[in-house]
């Protein structure tokens, strides 16, 4: 583990240095684009905790992202700036509670049923905001002022300032990354990895698997809420699209593209996905066609995701086989198959 961490650290610190130095080039458009990408990276990492480490492939993760955005828009006063710390806390809390309640239901299912019920729950939220006046219907809500960071009269930074907002998001990304890594190194994180490998085995060791999955789902939901809050701040409006299944699908693609089972992989996925989207849509109206082809090719030829490029390149340069740690994966097919016979019947109960 130690070895893997140190081998990784250099590229990570380098990327961080580039991100920290980027605004010095004074390219406002790209600074804002990077801000958006970093927000999506937080969102993708929150989903990777579920997909890559707990084995929960959720297709409804945008529900928590959107819910936090709407919470900010609904509780912010219309003609003055809201308090950042207060609204951020409330937004994350709402997402966490929603994840906890939804988790109580959806975690009783497995596999494809899990994908379907997470999707169904997210669609319920989508239609609540789309078809009722609660959040301004399909037009959404505007947020005329970015939240105010003042603490007892002292204002450490101003989110209205593009640069300040950029660095606030960058710090949020770094803090989220290290927080998630810390969680994974804890006994709780080890239990999640064990659950993904083989749930029955963890039960046999005396672990109440359901509650561990619920906790993971709630942590993932809260972090997605954090990203959703930042996103709503950046754009100054929310509409139902932020909790649509397109959004859930995009973030799942980011995780798969980058390589599930490593948080930096999810972040790489977010960078590549958003950049491709920007680049292709500037070339043609039919950008989704090309995007689809690229994704299919990447999944076919790089099943470990973009993060496996480094080890593969190093291996081919040194003429060795790549010594890639398997992704926090499942058991070999024979064991998995034997046990999935039970799982299938379990998921129907």
């Amino acid at each position: 583990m130690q070895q893997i961490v140190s081998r990784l650290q250099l590229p990570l610190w380098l990327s961080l240095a580039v991100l920290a130095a980027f605004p010095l080039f004074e390219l406002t458009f790209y600074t804002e684009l990077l801000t958006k990408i970093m927000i999506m990276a937080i969102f993708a990492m929150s989903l990777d905790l579920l997909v890559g480490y707990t084995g929960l492939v959720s297709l409804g993760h945008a529900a928590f992202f959107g819910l936090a955005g709407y919470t900010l828009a609904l509780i912010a006063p219309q003609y003055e700036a809201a308090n950042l710390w207060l609204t951020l806390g409330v937004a994350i809390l709402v997402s966490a509670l929603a994840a906890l309640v939804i988790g109580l239901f959806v975690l009783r299912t497995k596999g494809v049923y899990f994908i379907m019920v997470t999707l169904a729950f997210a669609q319920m939220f989508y239609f609540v905001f789309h078809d009722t006046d609660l959040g301004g219907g399909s037009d959404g809500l505007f947020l005329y002022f970015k939240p105010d960071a003042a603490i007892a009269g002292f204002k450490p930074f101003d989110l209205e300032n593009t640069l300040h907002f950029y660095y606030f998001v960058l710090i949020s990304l770094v803090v989220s990354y290290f927080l998630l890594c810390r969680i994974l190194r804890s006994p709780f994180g080890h239990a999640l990895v064990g659950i993904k490998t083989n749930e029955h085995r963890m039960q046999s060791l005396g672990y109440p698997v359901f509650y561990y999955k619920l906790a993971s789902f709630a942590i993932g939901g809260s972090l997605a809420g954090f990203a959703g809050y930042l996103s709503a701040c950046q754009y100054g409006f929310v509409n139902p699209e932020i909790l649509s299944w397109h959004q859930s699908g995009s973030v799942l693609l980011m995780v798969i593209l980058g390589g599930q089972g490593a948080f930096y992989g999810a972040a790489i996925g977010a960078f590549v996905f958003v950049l491709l989207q920007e680049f292709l849509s500037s070339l043609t109206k039919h950008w989704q066609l090309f995007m689809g082809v690229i994704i299919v090719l990447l999944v076919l030829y790089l099943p470990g995701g973009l993060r496996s490029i480094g080890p593969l390149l190093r291996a081919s340069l040194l003429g060795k086989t790549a010594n890639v740690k398997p992704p926090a994966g499942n058991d070999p097919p024979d064991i998995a198959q034997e046990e999935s016979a039970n799982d299938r019947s379990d998921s129907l109960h």
Partner: protein
Amino acid sequence: MSDTLLEARELHAYYGASHILHGVNFRVERGETIGLLGRNGMGKTTLIRSMLGLVSQRDGEVLVRGSLMTRAAPHLIARQGIAYVPEGRGIFPNLSVRENLVMAARAGVDGHYHWTYERILATFPRLAERLDNGGWQLSGGEQQMLTIGRALLTNPDLLLLDEATEGLAPLIRREIWKIIQHIQATGITTVIVDKNHSAILDISDRIVVLNKGQVAFEANSADARNQPGLLHRYLGV
């Protein structure tokens, strides 16, 4: 406290449409070593998994330490001091050897830590050398030792070993059998499933033979040894 640690009464189990166990009665008393025998597909693993609550479709009763736990969650049954070493090993490949061990550690039902991390490393010196290796980097024998070590760290009263020596080289097998004997000598009740019938007859007090999801016969190991005809009929040896 009852002296029966684990008991199945008229246990039926199903995988989807297939009926695997047909009313099995099985009892494990404290302190004994039971050899569970039978050809492939006769329901040995299913019997163990059903008693542990890992097979959801089942009828009949499962009693743990005398209390009815048929519908209890698997982790609650495990916390009654029952450790399971599954077939096909069962390490967590993405965790290091140390992490694999530490995640299982807890006090036994009596509140004591008879098996500590240090004691496990003393029992399995090979593991002590490989603490920082990932589970995926271990050899088959080492993986098996890790699984057994992990099970012991839960400080169980009853250890269920399913095909612990399968797929291992003869030398390593012998080492695993020695370890099993060592564990047995510490007074832990054990149920052993294995294809090596003579090793099981040597080590166990009692054998139970399953045939087509039913108990075909059970006997003291000494008696069973004197009835080679029966063993031949059900096990083909």
